[in-house]
């Protein structure tokens, strides 16, 4: 599967939800879509899933526009924080219904997940707690085996052990049945180990699309004497500064060369790693 998003924009009246979004996804990996509230994550994902049309620009999945394309729409599953308050059916009939329309749906695996999440098969889904309804969405997404599976903050309301089951199953599924998973989240520190690639969205624009591992080598925290740190970081992209007395810590974004590392060592500066969470917070924080 291959997904190309080109100059995509979405306006709601005068409000711009997405502006000139461009990225390409070619490999069956787990993609983390990070963004603050209102950054445009759900808008973007609902366009990919043909839930809505963009104002301008294009989405191509395997070279074709997915909107109203029966072949493509069947291969894209979009699971979101769905409200089941009017759903009188029980879990079994919902899964059977999904099986009818999703060609790769694996009922055996779905039942295994139902047991893992300890969901009641016969209870009407509207009587499920929020966390249980979220678990149902996870089951539909994982067992549906759609080549492009999108989870939009699907974990909402799930307790920590259930979220852990979700993460384990996700990784296992990705090994057994590789496909494109797009996970949108702001539980960054909890989910970062899942991501192969990270796409960051801020105020409707893509601010970063990187391989997770190379992204992690790009950020660093330089700590040491104020003057020395200032001297070292002046040519670097600084995304965060902390100071306590004469000690300063500057978070920078950009790869450090061997020379940089040697210089830092000679100056007695400490180079520490930063987490995806820190990177996310600093890159998307509002300007003062």
């Amino acid at each position, binding site marked *: 599967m291959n997904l190309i998003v080109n100059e995509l924009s979405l306006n709601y009246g005068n409000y711009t939800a997405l502006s000139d979004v461009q990225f390409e996804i070619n490999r069956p990996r787990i993609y983390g879509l990070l963004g603050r509230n209102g950054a445009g994550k759900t808008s973007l994902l*609902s366009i990919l899933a043909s839930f*809505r049309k963009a104002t301008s620009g294009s989405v191509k999945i395997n070279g074709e526009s997915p909107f109203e*394309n*029966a072949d493509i729409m*069947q291969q894209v599953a979009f699971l979101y924080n769905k409200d089941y308050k009017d759903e009188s059916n029980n879990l079994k009939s919902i899964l059977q219904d999904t099986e009818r*329309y999703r060609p790769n749906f694996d009922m055996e695996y779905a039942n295994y997940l139902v047991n893992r999440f300890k969901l009641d098969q016969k209870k009407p889904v509207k009587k499920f707690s929020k966390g249980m309804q979220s678990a149902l969405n996870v089951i539909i997404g994982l067992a549906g085996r759609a080549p492009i599976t999108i989870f939009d903050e699907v974990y909402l309301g799930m307790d920590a052990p259930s979220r852990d089951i979700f993460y384990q199953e996700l990784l296992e599924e990705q090994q057994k049945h590789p496909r494109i998973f797009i996970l949108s989240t702001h539980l960054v520190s909890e989910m970062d180990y899942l991501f192969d690639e990270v796409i960051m969205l801020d105020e409707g624009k893509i601010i970063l699309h990187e391989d997770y591992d190379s992204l992690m080598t790009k950020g660093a925290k330089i700590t040491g004497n104020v003057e020395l740190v200032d001297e070292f970081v002046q040519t670097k992209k600084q995304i965060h500064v902390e100071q306590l007395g004469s000690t300063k810590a500057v978070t920078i974004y950009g790869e450090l060369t061997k020379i940089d590392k040697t210089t830092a060592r000679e100056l007695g500066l400490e180079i520490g790693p930063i987490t995806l969470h820190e990177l996310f917070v600093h890159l998307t924080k509002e300007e003062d």
Partner: protein
Amino acid sequence: MKKSTIYLKVTGDMFMVQSLWILGFLGVMIVVHIFRIITAMFGDYGVDSYFDSVFIAANIAMFVIGILCIYFLPHFVGNGVTRKDYFRGAMLAAIGLSIALPIITMVVSTLGQFIINQIDQITYNNPDINSAVQEIDTNGNIIGNIISSTVQSIIIPPYVNPTSNWILAIAITSINTFIYYLIGWMISSGFYRLGTIPGLGFIIIGMITLIAKDSLLRITLNLPLAEQLTFLDFLPRSIAASTILLMVIMVIGVIRLLTKQVTVKL
């Protein structure tokens, strides 16, 4: 899964769910009907046939089911079905439902009448549903005219007595209920796509369509027209019938336009 068969799956699923609703409705009507028969046995009055009792209520039931039809759209799109397949599937299901409803009603009604005929103290009312439209008092007031024709078109659609021509009676009931379903579907699609204020506009369009449909159907069937609409009497029956067909096609077109690219709400 072949894409050409997806809409037939939609038809099957929607028909199954909606016919359960319709059977529930018909079941309630049977209870009401039995209750009326029992009270008729103790009083000195006749009882309508089951077909006649269902005839009017069925339109409202189909209207409500038509309104609910739009809420299948998010479900199907969420399962990777195109809006087009949903539209075709739902349309076929609606046609199926409109045909099945009067047939089931007719069967139950005939069975009921057979049973009742064994109890000789029950007499059947001779239905005079059609003449009721002429008895609505309007006082020449324009607003009154509009309200009365709206009310009567919702309550009293053109009626064919099943004992005189059962095939025509079924056909007319099918057409009536189908159009009510379409109007319900159109109104809810209008609300879903465009929001509350424009949605209200679709209620008005729906009402006008129903009044026009009723009057044209009366002309087609040579039935008496409502007093304030007698000026339409000059229309030949063939034109009246083809105008109904045209209206149905237009309503179907409007529903498709409203749902063709609609945003699915999360």
